[in-house]
């Protein structure tokens, strides 16, 4: 049987699951509607996999986490009360699954612990790039270069690879927040609800993550210019 989820032609319109009311969705899943399930998987699967990847050591383990999380969702359908959106609920289950898996792998500390550590001073830019004293104190001494817009190298595979690698090396909480916000397109409130952090913390984590990615891209541009 073919479920039609490998739709590749741009003309074809696929009804997105988010258009359905959350409670209708949950009702359809409860009755065992495989079409709705496969649409949900298609819509959320890639994002879930990428978010899970921040918690565990390999792609294979991340895939297992996604499967485990979906089973948790299905088994917990009766507990869905609609107080949060289905998507928030889904990702909360994913987070819990990924975290307990990460703990078993002995590499994860609870998110709250990490998110609580945002107080450390971590400047967006190396302070030595600003003038230290005098009338121009705090102003650029080593200013940023103008990147062409759109910068072709940032659109190529190598540029994406730089970003991917940088995110993988970020502290876990920063990596998760930038993944959700800037890759998967979560709104700030959604991120706060899924991760149980304040809007202030979300912004600080996002700011640090973006600042580091920008710095990595600047370094990359400098290197390729020197080639």
């Amino acid at each position, binding site marked *: 049987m073919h*479920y039609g*989820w*490998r739709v590749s032609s741009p003309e074809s319109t696929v009804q997105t699951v988010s258009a359905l009311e959350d409670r209708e969705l949950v009702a359809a899943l409860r009755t*065992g509607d*495989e079409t709705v*399930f*496969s649409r949900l*998987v*298609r819509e959320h*699967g*890639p*994002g879930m*996999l*990428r978010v899970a990847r921040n918690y565990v050591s390999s792609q294979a383990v991340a*895939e297992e986490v*996604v*499967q485990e999380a*979906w*089973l948790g969702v*299905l*088994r917990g359908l009766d507990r869905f009360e609609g107080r949060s959106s289905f998507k928030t609920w889904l990702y909360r289950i994913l987070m819990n699954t990924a975290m307990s898996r990460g703990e078993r792998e002995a590499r994860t500390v609870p998110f709250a612990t990490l998110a609580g550590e945002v107080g450390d001073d971590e*400047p*967006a*830019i190396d*302070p030595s790039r*600003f003038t230290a004293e005098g009338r121009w*104190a*705090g*102003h*650029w001494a080593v*200013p*940023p*270069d*103008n*990147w062409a*817009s*759109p*910068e072709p190298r*940032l*659109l190529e595979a190598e*540029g*994406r690879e730089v*970003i*991917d690698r940088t*995110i993988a090396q970020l502290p876990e909480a920063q990596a998760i927040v*930038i993944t959700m916000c*800037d*890759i*998967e*397109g979560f709104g*700030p409130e959604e991120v706060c609800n899924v991760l149980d952090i304040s*809007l202030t913390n979300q*912004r600080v984590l*996002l*700011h640090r993550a*973006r*600042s580091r*990615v*920008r710095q990595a*891209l600047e370094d990359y541009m400098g290197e390729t210019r020197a080639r």
Partner: protein
Amino acid sequence: MKLSRDLTCAEVVELVTEYLEGGLSAPERERFEEHLGVCDWCVTYLEQMRQTIGSTGQLREEDLDPQLQDALIEVFRGWKTE
């Protein structure tokens, strides 16, 4: 009337995310934009941040590996028989 001194570049780079995410108050926003009005380097920096965000967004993948999709359908079928 000026409420406080002008921002430095070092302060601007720390406010960029709040600015882009709409987290600044109206007076803060005004001070931020006032600085941009006189500092091309910070305009460049802001543009780099926008490009960074745009390029990061390109990592998004629309398609799930068909094998994982199949595995998930199996999870669903298994659950139905529980």
